[in-house]
């Protein structure tokens, strides 16, 4: 059996993650990315997944996975337990994206986060011309059944990163089936063009000066 072609966003994440690092994949699904990270980059991976189906699939693959909710369960991980925390295309489904983002960068030194860009021209056009909620490749579901409750544009996202004192170490535009394209997410043109933005984030402040959380044990 030949392996299925690697998804473009996974390929980009594999490129960004340092070999042999400790990785937490939040919303790891059936563990495809974790398995790639383990196999190809020698990473020590841990998944967090809400669905029973996903968790069973991960266990069957021999991955370490915790059935849980990214909105609630990140609080229980200790500070800087991982080198990378990955959140692929699910931030917009979180009840508290801001809290989740800051938690990712408490738990890990770096975060890899991808978000669909609600500022893309197709989205703007759908709303402007048709007056209907956009349905695009990146946002395929109608408004009444989508899981996306906190959509944002690339500029919204970079503003949130500023707000949280996060540094954008790298950013790439992803669109279905095409290779990732490095971009400057603060440029207006990219806020029009990119279908999805993939960000590598780190804390601006020196992590060693941040007081370790003492309330985690308990």
């Amino acid at each position, binding site marked *: 059996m030949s392996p299925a072609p690697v998804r473009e966003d996974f390929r980009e994440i594999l490129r960004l993650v340092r070999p042999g690092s400790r990785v937490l994949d939040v919303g790891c699904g059936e563990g495809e990315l974790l398995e790639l990270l383990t196999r190809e980059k020698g990473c020590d991976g841990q998944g967090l997944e809400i669905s029973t189906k996903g968790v069973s699939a991960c266990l069957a693959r021999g991955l370490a996975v915790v059935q849980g909710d990214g909105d609630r369960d990140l609080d*229980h991980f200790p500070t800087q337990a991982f080198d990378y925390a990955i959140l692929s295309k699910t931030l917009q489904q979180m009840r508290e994206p801001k809290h989740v983002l800051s938690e990712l960068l408490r738990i890990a030194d770096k975060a890899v986060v991808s978000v669909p860009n609600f500022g893309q021209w197709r989205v703007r056009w759908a709303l402007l011309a048709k007056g209907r909620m956009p349905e695009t490749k990146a946002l395929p579901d109608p408004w009444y059944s989508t899981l996306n409750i906190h959509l944002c544009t690339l500029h919204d996202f970079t503003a949130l990163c500023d707000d949280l004192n996060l540094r954008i170490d790298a950013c790439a535009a992803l669109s279905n089936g095409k290779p990732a394209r490095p971009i400057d997410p603060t440029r207006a043109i990219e806020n029009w063009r990119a279908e999805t933005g993939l960000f590598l984030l780190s804390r601006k402040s020196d992590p060693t000066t941040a007081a370790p959380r003492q309330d985690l044990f308990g």
Partner: protein
Amino acid sequence: MSEAATATLDEASGGGTWRFPADQPLRLDSGAQIAPLEVAYKTYGKLNADKTNAVLVCHALTGDQYLASTHPVTGKPGWWTRVVGPGLPLDPARYFIICSNVVGGCMGSTGPASINPETSAPYALAFPVITIADMARAQKMLVEALGIETLFAVVGGSMGGMQVLQWAADYPEKLFSAICIAAAPRHSAQNIAFHEVGRAAIMADPDWRAGAYELAGVRPDKGLAVARMAAHITYLSESALQRKFGRELQRDGLSWGFDADFQVESYLRHQGSSFVDRFDANSYLYITRALDYFDLAAEHGGVLAQAFRKARDVRFCVLSFSSDWLYSTAESRDIVRALNAAGCRASFAEITTDKGHDAIFLDEPALDSALRGFLASAAEKRGLA
């Protein structure tokens, strides 16, 4: 290992009774000691040359060492033949599987029915109160006596899961992986309350004789049966009971009396009366007490994560059942959060089932596949073929 230690083996599988000499007592949490200590156990499979393939399976409250072999009293198959056997997640072709009767039990390990060397009569209530940690300590003595330095895995459900947690807290250096199924890090008020009902039923039986029934040549079977009936309800979910029995009657029409009119009554009576053939009432008192005393966080300054702080190299798998209200998913989550907080490598899955706590022992393919996946990957990491 002392030369005075002896083991008897039977043919069907490995195992027997390990008799520790009197100078190797089991030191209990209460401060008391048990000497001489006997631990009855079964083994399946062969220990490999590196001694890296040993798996300890810890049994539940009313379980025993007859994990995958015919029970000598009931003649029924072992209690975990769904999981232990050729081609199953715990395959004797791959692992050396050990299961021992807990201290305080009644299937060969030293318990309240054993002879007290000081009086040459059964201990009865002179038997010291034991804890889950004491059970784990006795298991550790057995494992060491068998010449095993490190266990590939310690596995258990319900009370067995609590022993798994205790192993992780007390002897993490002896574990490569740990599987805790449908357990809790402490006994809740509700758990203790149900056990108190069971103990009260036993003690209310006039044949209990303040525990000294054996000398009197009687048995508090009625009390023990009621204890089992009450406990058995907690092992099933409301929906499973409804599905199995509903309001179905035993016969056409009501008896207008107190016979077992409903099928669920008949079922519970059967559970109670068959239980007394294979279990000792005083053992039931002592083991339920051990469960009630279990509070792993309390042993570590009230902080559960502290219990696991030395277990960072152990690979954990925690499993719960969605309809288990005895030791619920919420309690397994507490365990997982503490493991995460302690920086341990943990997997956790809630298995969706309506079978309640008893799902540990029942046909639950999702449990099998979770165990299979976790064990296979751990075995690969351990270098087991």
